[in-house]
């Protein structure tokens, strides 16, 4: 079954012309044939994962576009004219410049009972990640892989995480999708082949949501996995970027995300520059994609520096405590 997805040919959804995947490690997202006569623009309806070593398409999940153009007249609050996301002086709504990240703060080892845990704040988005394992397979044994560990992810949002109380903290469509994305990201990053027939559980909870939930989850989970001592190829750092006025904006906050920006989420293994996950479901001109991915990678590298610092500081603290 898995093999089938490996061989899935990439072809334009519109004109059905097959597009050769260049033998590259970084993969370009090509869903529509760039020469497709139907569409100058394309809808990114696809989610691509690259297994970093082999450098080929891991798995293509096609998704249907949900409602082509959403009529949003009632989403706008009150009397407000649309927000100016990037002023002429180059400042964003919250005073950052286009490439600047929000303030990242993190702590590792916040829970003693779990094998690994971390708390991460990226601006007002706050997430808690907990890792159990690797341990024996629980539940159905049929999922066991004889050559590697299985990663199990669960994403949820606290009921108090949004401005209005959330009815259903997990298990809805969005959360399930997010869980799947996390799983795919970490399968690409964790050296699962070291733990055959076992399972690693990653639980992530958003405590406060202010945009970029996916990337914050990935960053928090990375720290938790490191805290659990599970070997990874590299830190996985994620960041969202949006595209406004021909300028890529790094690390979008909620106001920007909801302001009708086409945004792209990218998870990167910074040292090799390999993409663990790339996701976009907005409309964007093909010409801008390269620049956007470039900006996202720069942002991810910025995040990786912060994470690295956090890990080093944590190690220092731990070594001081253990009296070494």
């Amino acid at each position, binding site marked *: 079954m898995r093999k089938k997805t490996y061989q899935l040919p990439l072809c334009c959804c519109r004109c059905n012309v097959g597009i050769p995947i260049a033998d590259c490690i970084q993969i370009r997202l090509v869903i529509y044939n760039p020469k497709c006569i139907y569409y100058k623009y394309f809808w990114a309806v696809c989610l691509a994962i690259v297994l970093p070593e082999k450098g080929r398409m891991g798995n293509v999940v096609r998704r249907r576009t949900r409602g082509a153009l959403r009529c949003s007249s009632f989403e706008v609050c009150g009397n407000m*004219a649309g927000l100016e996301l990037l002023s002429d002086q180059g400042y964003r709504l919250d005073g950052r410049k286009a490439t600047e990240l929000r*303030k990242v703060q993190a702590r590792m080892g916040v829970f003693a009972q779990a094998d690994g845990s971390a708390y991460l704040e990226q*601006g007002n988005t706050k997430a808690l990640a907990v890792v159990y394992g690797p341990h024996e397979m629980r539940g159905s044994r049929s999922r066991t892989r004889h050559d590697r560990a299985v990663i199990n992810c669960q994403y949820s949002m606290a009921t108090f995480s949004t401005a209005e109380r959330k009815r259903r903290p997990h298990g809805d469509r969005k959360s399930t999708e997010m869980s799947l994305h996390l799983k795919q990201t970490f399968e690409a990053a964790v050296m699962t082949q070291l733990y055959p027939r076992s399972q690693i559980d990653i639980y992530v909870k958003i405590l406060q949501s202010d945009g970029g939930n996916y990337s914050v989850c990935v960053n928090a989970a990375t720290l938790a996995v490191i805290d659990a001592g599970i070997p990874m190829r590299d830190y996985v750092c994620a960041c969202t970027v949006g595209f406004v006025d021909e300028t890529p904006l790094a690390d979008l906050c909620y106001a920007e995300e909801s302001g009708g920006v086409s945004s792209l989420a990218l998870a990167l293994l910074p040292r090799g520059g390999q993409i663990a996950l790339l996701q976009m479901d907005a409309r964007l001109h093909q010409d801008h994609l390269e620049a956007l991915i470039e900006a996202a990678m720069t942002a991810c590298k910025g995040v990786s520096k912060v994470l690295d610092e956090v890990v080093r500081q944590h190690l220092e603290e731990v070594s001081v405590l253990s009296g070494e």
Partner: protein
Amino acid sequence: MLKSKTFVKKTRSGGVMKIVREHYLRDDIWCGSEVCAECKQESAVLQRDACIESNLCTYPHYLIPDTNVVLHQIDVLEDPVIRNVIILQTVLQEVRHRSAPVYKRLKDIIHEKEKHFYTFTNEHHRDTFIEREPGESANDRNDRAIRVATKWYSQHLKTSESDAEGLKVVLLTNDQGNTQKAEESSLLVYKCMWSMFSIRGSTDPFKKLCVSTNEITSSKVLFPEHLPLSRIQAGIKSGSFLQGSFRASRDNYLEATVFVQGEGEDSTEVLIQGLQNLNRAVHQDVVAVQLLPRNQWVAPSAVVLQDEGTAKDDDAEEEEEEKALRISAAEAASKPTGKIVGIIKRSWRPYCGMLNASQIKESTRHLFTPADRRIPRIRIETRQSSTLAGQRIMVAIDGWPKHSRYPNGHFVRSLGSAGEKDTEQEVLLLEHDVPHQDFSQAVLSFLPKMPWAITPEDMVKREDLRHLTVCSVDPPGCTDIDDALHCRELDNGNLEVGVHIADVSHFIRPGNAMDKEAANRGTTVYLCGKRIDMVPELLSSNLCSLRSNVERMAFSCIWEMNDKAEILKTRFTKSVINSKASLTYAEAQMRIDDTTMNDDITQSLRGLNKLAKILKRQRIEKGALTLSSLEVRFHIDSETHDPIDLQTKELMETNSMVEEFMLLANISVAQKIYDEFPDCAMLRKHPAPPPSNYDILLKAAKSKNVEIHTDSAKALADSLDGAKVDGFPYFNTLLRILATRCMMQAVYFCSGMDSDFHHYGLASPIYTHFTSPIRRYADIIVHRLLAVAIAADSTYPDLMDKHKQSALANNLNYRHKMSQYAQRASVAFHTQLFFKSRGILNEAGYVLFVRKNAIIVLIPKFGLEGTVFFDTKDKAAPNLVFDEEGPTLKVEQHNFCIFDKVKVTISLDASNIQHQKIRMALIDPVIPGVSVPAPDVEPQAKKPKLDR
């Protein structure tokens, strides 16, 4: 370089939601001054020697205007004298929020290098950000933020300044409280007005603009409140208010009339002028009007005014426009004038039109301009403005609050991109309320099953006329043939003439879905290249259509006439016929003219033609009018469906032959059904126009020394026939065109509800429509009535109910009118397509009307009417003198009056994609500054040969 502090800014929106946003404060925002040595800016915007020559400030200074100063004195800021201004982010945001046009202008100034305007992002600066204090209003907080920023600047410049030039910052404000507070904190404050007055070398416009103190606020109440329904009703009862339907003017958005239906026949029109008086009424609403005192009555203005303001803040201009209206009105005869006090019933529907995207790119509020000029622009909220721009969209009105200049609405759906033929056709169908969806399954279920044939049961009830030499004569390409004729000599030497009309009422039974649909549609609508059927195509083009050589059911009207065309006997019967030929007018004409042809059909046609001529003469003697209007016909390319040529329709003898017999049949049937059902016959009348309608015609004729009598139809017809001017052969046609414009609309009515049956145009005491049941619903009703009258069919309750009948007649009148408008619009659109492909043309035409600022020119070659404006926005108006009596219009030295021959260039004006129009400009007579040089019109390029 980045020192980020996390501040939390809480804002409330929608009353309940709490929004938490991060707010980063920075220490890398520079002051932008050349003087400053502290800030590490790359290029300073503000100059070192920032001196505006002013009496007030003799030292170099930077100006910091507050929000209100920017909003009200933007013209001053635009002046080149004003340089070195610091625009604070707070101010910029407030301006953006309150007035889009001013914001746009401000941004333009900022982008201009020579102006040295610097935007200081004070809200994100570490030292100038302030938090709102408890109990402080947002405005007060912003004022404080402006003061804090000013203070920061003055201190910053003081410390950084090495030389003692004494560079200062000056806060400009008009607000008393703000001034006081600023002075307390020892800032330099000036009232904007004085500081401007004291600028040396300032020019006149300065002073004028500075004084203007109009408010720009969204909460201002623009319109008076509508009265509650109970008070309106009481007012109507007591006679202080009048109830009527509101009709906005097409040419002038500040003017409208309310049509008040009085008791019986008399109805009055009340003029409404000015935004306040119009009070948010929208075209076709039912409104309550209060008459103004007689001394405030005005006359409708002859000025063409279009609402072209950029956004909501064009109050000032509007006031001027309103004033202009009044002045022009004062001279002329005034009409009853009133103001709207309340709306009794809104008749809002979704409107087609296009979006004017707001000047602020991210803005979600945009104005929508309906295709119909009588509908005001509508404000909608959408985030898809970039997608919707350039598309035809539909918008529905939600409401019109009293503080809003425009009604609020929402986006309904998109019809497609503007200018495409399908989209435009859809728009004009929707705009004219033409039901044009496909027929529903319920309707189609009542169609007869195919293959269909006439059964013996049908034959029993019908007369077999299959042996007669019946033929039909129609325009070319006609597939819905609803009439056929025959004529034969009887043994007694008289002639038998038969008119056979498709028996649609046999297929459409009363009360079923198909009948209801047809009653609602009322009429088939013919557009250029498209037909919107009233009944499904199987009936209209096949089973009902009296095609040649097939057996068809018909309703026949058969007369016995002598050779003087006197009717000796009239007989109606349901029948079965078999048409021997379906001819076009041209073919029939050829047969009649070709002496070598002597077959039955030709004989029959000759007989008919002979009788028709006599009938026509008799009719004209009785006073029937022959009017004229130019109809055009397009030659449409069979593949692209683009019009390739345009010509006026020509009329042949056979046209009038068919017409005469149709008239005869209609009159005979009208008489018959009225005799049988005096209470509920569906008839058609054409009221005589009131004498005042003829004014324009009389004046026009007088200018050529021709006398026209309008006492009766006969007198009019005779004087029109006699009206000839030597050397002006087209004069008569023009006069007839004008006469047509004077006429009233013919209408359907129910005989039980009315007493005046006269048909003015046809000079017939009674008239109905019987001959086109495939394309008109009235004819179906008449068929049913006639069938009952001759005991060929049974009756049903609705047919005999005069109130229901009357309601139906109203709907039919409405649909009929709308279909005519739709047809005209379709022709207009195709004319535009035609001229688009042709480029610029020079043509000769005649002045048809003279208006205050324009003449309306008719081009006979294309049957095209266009307006030549003399006052255009972009250039100075020539000297115009309008004389009501002539009516003549004196432009500089040249006098225009009706029927003048002029030469114009015709081109397509696509500058407004919504209302693409044919633009005409004067070539001859040559008036300097007004007329345009004749462009070289290239001979029509030969069609490129196809490359093999």
